[in-house]
């Protein structure tokens, strides 16, 4: 208690001043209340002084409420007869003056004492756990989580919005710092997931609706019409060859190549079944063509297919929605919109990938010729606190830029490569060594300074930058400019967060339950976080987090029953008038009405009474405020308890 709190709160005085409050039988101070010693002290005090209620003045109840409840239980008390006064996060850590801090701590303690007087013993109910997990996102994060859960023996469903699993990692060429081929290490995982008996993959699918709660989620999945029968298609690819509509920009190739209206995103796609892009298909747009149906040897084309809604129950949900990159058009000074040879790093990945639009041949997009010089620009949109950018560091750009620069030099030693940077950040195993190799062995020129404008001069591009170390402005010639665009969460992250009541930060990354101690859990019970959807990270970190999220989900699924929150609503039947204002505000449909025999002012009568289904009630308390007679109340946060706190504070 003292170490953190005692700096600005005189804890002895807090104990002293609450000792004189009526009903307080014992008050003391102790340095580490949450330690074993503190808990022993608590147990002994209960026995010695015959305590019936406990108030702990310590850190936030979000940290240790469970600890102290357990200790109370061990001492033979009902665990819900404990209240915490948060004198650390809400007091000593935010106030500097000791007098002021102590006075506030005493006030908070008094409020907690006033509340605990009215606490009643509560018993947690039980609810069963559905032994099935839902993973949202089929990139490396989602696949790893699903594989780990499946290996533990639980059923897992993956939903992926695009036509194939694989995610961003499938688009990459090589991976830093070991330079293994991305597809070579990802594809086996994709195959494993597809072949696993415990895994069901829904591609081209999105989450439509989620209800329920931890252990008992019910999800509605929209399987978008593929227009191709998955069970009949043999993946021969004849349809794609013959399709006359070939103008759509390939999503997988970052628009560097076109694709047919009926398409498989990439060769190793899973499932290896095409999908018809109805926006591009002549059959759907103009009711012409129909060629694919005519030539399909398996008769798998189904124009009449409709979206399918699948409803399933899950015990746990893992978010693995990954990322996208910021639109470089927001930073017009780099000329992305008007110069073909200004490209993003992801486009560069496709451009150097042997399976990419140029078969890995590095060329300028403007004329198909080999570039003589390449400039890489880091921090495009990262570490940018203005409304154009993102204030965070995207974490992976320094390394992938070093990778790109090194690979260019390895393959084409004659190409001049410059990297403009603000700082080079390479914390990670073998990372700094890798970046230095690019400089020392391969002669990549790193220049500390940002780029202010990219213009066209003569045939090529001129990169107007500054050399901060030299204190000069420089203009670097470049045939190709590669922008390291900031990592941003997937565009539907916010929508999903609302759907799942998962907490999300201002940048749209999912928030973890605790930034250090619970980094793979959402504050919402039963929702876990895997990969970049929680914050920028590279592949090894993503895989590690995916495994951690899986373990958390497995831990949940391995339980047969969960204890439910006993702080739920209940009705005083004698004062309930049956108006059912409560029913209308309940977001869970937990309130119903029954005719019941009640004693009302000495008269027995049969009337409509609200009824709370405690298994459904989540304890928000909306009903208790809507109730005009005060018949509806919330256990653990009753009207009287809160009023007592108000009275104690004011």
């Amino acid at each position, binding site marked *: 208690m003292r170490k953190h709190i005692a700096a600005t709160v005189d804890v002895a005085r807090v104990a002293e001043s609450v000792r004189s409050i009526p009903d307080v039988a014992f008050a003391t101070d102790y340095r580490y209340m949450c330690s074993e010693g503190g808990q022993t002290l608590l147990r002994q005090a209960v026995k010695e002084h015959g305590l019936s209620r406990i108030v702990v003045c310590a850190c936030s109840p979000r940290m240790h409420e469970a600890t102290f409840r357990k200790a109370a239980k061990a001492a033979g008390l009902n665990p819900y007869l404990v209240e915490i006064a948060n004198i650390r996060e809400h007091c000593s850590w935010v106030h500097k003056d000791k007098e002021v801090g102590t006075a506030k701590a005493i006030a908070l303690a008094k409020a907690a004492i006033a509340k605990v007087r009215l606490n009643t013993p509560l018993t947690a109910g039980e609810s069963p756990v559905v032994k099935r997990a839902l993973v949202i996102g089929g990139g490396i994060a989602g696949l790893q989580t699903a594989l780990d859960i499946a290996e533990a023996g639980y059923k897992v469903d993956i939903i992926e919005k695009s036509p194939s699993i694989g995610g961003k990692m499938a688009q990459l060429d090589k991976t830093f710092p070991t330079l293994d081929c991305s597809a070579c290490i990802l594809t086996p995982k994709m195959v494993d997931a597809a072949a696993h008996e415990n895994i069901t993959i829904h591609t081209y699918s999105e989450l439509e609706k989620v209800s329920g709660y931890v252990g008992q989620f019910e999800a509605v999945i929209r399987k978008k019409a593929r227009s191709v029968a998955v069970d009949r298609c043999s993946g021969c690819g004849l349809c794609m060859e013959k399709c006359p509509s070939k103008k759509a920009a390939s999503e997988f190739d970052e628009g560097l190549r076109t694709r047919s209206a009926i398409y498989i995103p990439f060769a190793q796609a899973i499932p290896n079944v095409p999908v018809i892009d109805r926006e591009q298909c002549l059959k759907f747009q103009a009711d012409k063509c129909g060629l694919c149906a005519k030539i399909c040897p398996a008769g798998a084309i189904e124009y009449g297919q409709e979206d399918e809604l699948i409803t399933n129950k899950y015990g746990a949900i893992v978010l693995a929605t990954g990322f996208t990159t910021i639109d470089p058009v927001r930073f017009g000074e780099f000329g992305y919109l008007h110069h073909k040879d200004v490209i993003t790093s992801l486009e560069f990945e496709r451009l150097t990938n042997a399976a990419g639009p140029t078969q890995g041949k590095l060329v300028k997009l403007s004329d198909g010729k080999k570039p003589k010089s390449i400039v890489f620009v880091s921090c495009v949109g990262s*570490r*940018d606190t203005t409304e*154009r*950018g993102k204030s965070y560091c995207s974490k992976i750009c320094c390394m992938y830029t070093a990778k790109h620069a090194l690979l260019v030099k390895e393959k084409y030693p004659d190409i001049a490569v410059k990297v403009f940077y603000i700082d080079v950040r390479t914390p990670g195993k073998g990372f700094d060594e890798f970046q230095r190799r690019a400089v020392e062995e391969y002669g990549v020129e790193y220049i500390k*300074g940002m780029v*202010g404008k990219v213009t066209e001069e003569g045939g090529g591009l001129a990169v107007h930058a500054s050399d901060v170390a030299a204190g000069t402005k420089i203009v670097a010639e470049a045939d190709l400019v590669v922008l390291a665009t900031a990592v941003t969460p997937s565009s539907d992250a916010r929508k999903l967060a609302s759907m799942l009541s998962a907490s999300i930060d201002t940048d749209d990354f999912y928030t973890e339950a605790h930034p250090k101690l619970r980094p793979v859990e959402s504050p919402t019970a039963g929702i876990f976080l895997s990969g970049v959807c929680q914050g920028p990270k590279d592949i090894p970190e993503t895989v590690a987090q995916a495994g951690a999220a899986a373990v958390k989900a497995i831990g949940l699924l391995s339980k047969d029953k969960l204890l439910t929150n006993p702080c739920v609503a209940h009705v005083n039947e004698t004062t309930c008038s049956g108006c059912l204002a409560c029913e209308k505000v309940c977001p869970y449909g937990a309130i119903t009405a029954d005719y019941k025999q009640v004693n009302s002012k000495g008269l027995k009568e049969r009337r409509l009474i609200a009824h709370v289904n405690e298994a459904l009630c989540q304890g928000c308390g909306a009903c208790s405020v809507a109730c005009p007679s005060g018949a509806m109340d919330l256990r653990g946060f009753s009207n009287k308890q809160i009023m007592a706190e108000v009275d104690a504070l004011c």
Partner: protein
Amino acid sequence: MQIREMEEAAEVLRISTVKAENCMQCGKCSAACPAGARMDILPHRFVWELMNGRVSLLAKSGTLWQCLSCFACSARCPRGVDPARLIEAVRLTVIRRQGANSINVDELPQVIDENMPQQAIVSALRKYNK
């Protein structure tokens, strides 16, 4: 002297309303500056020197008279620092002193031609004289 200069720097920062501490010395302002080639102290360096209180150095710099207030630096700064405002604030500390006008008004007729819009003259006098 040192203390005096730090106070001056604080005053410059105050009237500029710029949060110079947000600057991370990325140099984008200098890279974007169309007049940078003729500046002795580039905008990012200007911010740096000011943060370190070297107002008298900045007061002597040619940068004060080359900056065009075109706001390319301000617009492209990723940290919302506004170097143009800082340069203006230092320029004001110079020209607000008596007899420190930068343009000799008597010589003006020689540089003004028939088509020059008065906008140019008013702007220059506002920027360089008090």
